[in-house]
């Protein structure tokens, strides 16, 4: 059902955890649909220096969270803001159709975290 990349990111998720004094935090989803994703950012000079995540959700939810952290690290905020859920799914070699809508929210969580950072720093 899941691609090898999904299983890899699910079983060895990258960047799990919280950042002590994150300067941006974003959360999406809710328990009723089974997915909650939380992204923590460390931004310096408009560049994402560190990202961590915590996720309650299925295999796809955890894998997309892990993948989005890998994709975001080192990017400028502008670059990160154009990262889409679709791009995250593609980086994982695709997701099962049933999971595309429900679990593919990681880029949204990242964008929320960036907006949080921007709100605090403007």
């Amino acid at each position: 059902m899941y691609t090898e990349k999904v299983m890899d990111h699910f079983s060895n998720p990258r960047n799990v955890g919280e950042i002590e004094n994150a300067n941006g935090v974003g959360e999406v989803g809710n328990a009723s649909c089974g997915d909650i994703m939380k992204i923590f950012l460390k931004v310096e000079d408009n560049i994402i220096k560190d990202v961590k995540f915590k996720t309650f959700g299925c295999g796809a939810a955890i894998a997309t969270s892990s993948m989005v952290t890998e994709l975001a690290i080192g990017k400028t905020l502008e670059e990160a803001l154009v990262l889409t859920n679709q791009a995250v799914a593609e980086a994982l070699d695709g997701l099962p159709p049933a999971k595309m809508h429900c679990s593919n929210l990681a880029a949204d969580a990242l964008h929320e975290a960036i907006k949080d950072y921007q709100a605090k720093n403007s």
Partner: protein
Amino acid sequence: MKQIYLDNNATTTVKPEVLEAMLPYFREQFGNPSSVHWAGRMVSGAIEKAREQVAQLLNCSSAEVVFVSCGSEGDNFAIKGTAEALRHKGNHIITTTVEHPAVLETCEYLEKNGFEVTYLPVDKDGMLDLADLEAAISDQTILISVMWANNETGNLFPINEIGEIARRHKVRFHTDAVQAIGKVPVDVQAAKVDLLVLSGHKIGAPKGVGALYLRRGTRMTRFMHGGHQERNRRAGTHNVPGIVGLGVACELARLNQEKDYAYVRRLRDKLEQGILSTVPDVKLNGHPNPDLRLPNTLNVSFNFIEGESLLLFFDMKGIAASSGSACTSGSLEPSHVMKAMGVDIVLAHSSVRFSFSADNTEEEVDYILAELPPIVQRLREMSPLYQR
């Protein structure tokens, strides 16, 4: 890699004796039992023998057994066949909120076609209130459909008492006994049921065969129209090997169920107590009294963790279980059974069902009890809901 199969409520492996009995019916004795020639005669006796084996397990007469293709067909037939046959008498059906979709979706379909359905609630332990049931009966009520045992929690419903009530009010009573067969004694006379459904693949027979017990004199509209098979009650060429296999599986169930009950019960209780005593923040789903559940079923919620991800981690250790999480089924809602029991939404998403068969071993339980806590811990550490 170890393979520990603890999903026997989903499906079972075919028993060796069952497969052996079936094999001659694919190529050597392949006839159509409706044919008059040697090829047909060879197999018609086999069908009748299997019918007798099913009847013995249920304590009914073989003429009351109709072979169908699966549990879902049995439920569709029982409910739609009753609804149409008794429509002139009334349009009200009583069932529960925790039935299998084969019953629930059939009832919802009938609601779109002029029937009224009462879905009885369950309490936090997943049990019915018989006073509710009796109060729901009106002069329009034509059918009560209550499952014998719930597939997710293993809860056993008070079928004999419901049979009493139904009989007293002269209302027809159907029970989906797909999960009960072979796990607990099932006697259609004692239970006073009029219609009962079972499915082969839950008891060591193959997928693609089931049976409907149809009490003598129960008027039904056909569900499968066509040829005159099964005394005009169900059309379609008989699935001869499947039916032979179902017969043998029922005979094995009759001979072994007492012994198997004690065996799987011991394994299940050990896993249950082990999990409840070693893993924090878990909740048992279903009736706390293990006597009121199937001996083979354990359903627990591992708080803060979504069920599918738990199953996938279990799977990496070779452990096959199932979950009430929405995400495993591709639907958006978590288990309707958990919802009906009022289980908190996160706990509903984090429920896992372990279901045993007599093929499981105590070593397997030990292995799970060793592997499970670190997996739970690891996933909890990823969860935004978990605070140490």
